[in-house]
């Protein structure tokens, strides 16, 4: 696997920035192809995937819970006066749940996940790269890409949808609390209104895209860490650029996936 080198330095010219843009793009493409080449070949390193799912996923539950709750709460608090003004106060549970299921839940969870996990993977693999641990693995005839990258990418791809579903549930609960603070509403009424307003077709595309977001987080973090160079400065750079690039790609792919979803299922619009 040949990955183009990124040019680093304090005085980069415009041509260097353009070169780095295309080098990153081609590096990610090569990394992507390599992932699919390696992912279906044994050994499958199931224990390692499980370990990463635990480390990367379970430990993100806390922050996802807080974020999910606040999103639901703030969304309901902000929307309530407007909805009431237009005489659509009854539609508030449906509006909150649809916004959270279709867009806010998956995307905000993915962005939080990128901040927490992509930077972690970038820093960990970056530090392994600069301290020659990845080289040590390679000279021991063990495939470092398979062991370090494939396992992490599979783990992030599998764990993010679970986190997103969890965040959606918490956000909807947050929405209920925001409503109930200002006006009395039974939980049963809220639950029925939520379930009525969400169709299966709303839920599936929202959750399905989190598989893509999870894949992006794992792949970008691994790519940045795997190609880190330049000592501790390189590790820091790998960590930061992982978050920036994966967040950006999440938003770009969100736009593309929403367009595809609407094209495939026009009734959702």
């Amino acid at each position, binding site marked *: 696997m040949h990955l183009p080198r990124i040019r680093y330095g304090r005085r980069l010219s415009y041509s260097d920035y353009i070169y780095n843009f295309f080098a990153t793009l081609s590096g990610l493409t090569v990394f992507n192809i390599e992932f699919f080449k390696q992912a279906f070949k044994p050994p499958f390193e199931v224990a390692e995937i499980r370990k990463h799912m635990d480390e990367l996923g379970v430990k993100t539950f806390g922050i996802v819970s807080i974020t999910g709750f606040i999103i639901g709460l703030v969304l309901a608090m902000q929307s309530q006066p407007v909805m009431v003004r237009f005489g659509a106060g009854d539609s508030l549970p449906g509006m909150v749940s649809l916004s959270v299921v279709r867009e806010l839940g998956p995307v905000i969870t993915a962005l939080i996940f990128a901040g927490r996990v992509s930077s972690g993977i970038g820093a960990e693999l970056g*530090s392994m790269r600069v*301290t*020659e*641990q990845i*080289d040590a693995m390679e*000279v*021991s*005839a*063990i495939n470092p890409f398979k062991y370090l990258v494939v396992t992490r990418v599979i783990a992030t791809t599998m764990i993010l949808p679970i986190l997103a579903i969890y965040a959606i549930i918490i956000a909807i609960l947050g929405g209920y609390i925001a409503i109930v603070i200002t006006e009395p509403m039974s939980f049963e009424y809220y639950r029925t209104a939520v379930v009525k307003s969400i169709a299966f077709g709303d839920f599936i595309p929202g959750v399905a895209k989190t598989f893509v977001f999870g894949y992006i987080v794992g792949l970008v973090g691994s790519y940045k860490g795997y190609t880190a160079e330049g000592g501790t400065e390189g590790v820091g750079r790998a960590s930061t650029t992982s978050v920036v690039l994966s967040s950006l790609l999440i938003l770009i792919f969100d736009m593309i996936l929403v367009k595809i979803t609407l094209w495939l299922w026009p009734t959702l619009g």
Partner: protein
Amino acid sequence: MVMADSRVVEVNKLSKSFDGHVVLNGITLNVTRAENLVVFGQSGTGKSVLLKCIIGLMIPDNGKIFINGQDISLLKINELNRIRKNIGFLFQGAALYDSMSVHDNLAFPLKRHFPERSNEEIENKIKHTLELVSLEDAINKMPSELSGGMKKRIGLARSIITDPELMLYDEPTTGLDPITSKEISVLILNLQKKLNMTSIVVTHDLICAEIIADRAIFLREANIAFEGNIEKLINSNDPFLKNFFSHEVISQENK
């Protein structure tokens, strides 16, 4: 005369440059079975690059490298890995896996290369290898809990645990105090004798070289400037070698 079949490593006209800076320029050398070759040279003269080319971590610009008669540039990754299983590599910083304990660091290559071995056999092998480097007590420690010398020993244990035929050492004693560095050097020599390994040792450390070396080469300006036994190098009249191996210049300046 060296018999061709006793050559473990053959490097033929090896060249490597980085961004136009030539680091190795047509290096040719052979290492025979059970021989300890020491590679000297100033910092940045391509000693580590030479080792990394031999193990296949770096691809030479020109030239060939043969390991046990096989040209490694022609090998696919699976075939290269088959050869790598017979090679141990001790990195300058030991390169222990931070997230694994000493036990897991040692078990990692063993479990993957010998899946047929039982857990008991693997545990015995780990114990035995740790005894060889006198660090049986460190089995459950994490790399962050080890001193520099201990890390080197564990790195050495991990490299030899698969019983390699060829060992490559990248500055095994750099950054260690004189006593620990002597201990590591003696350990390398004893292991080589005990396991009948061939070794290439990159070092700046004269004492380490005196203990280990059967033969030494000196890299200078991208070429092998001198080759021979260690005494020949130390007693050479060449001003550059004198400068490298003695305190003469420093003492003159101090006067």
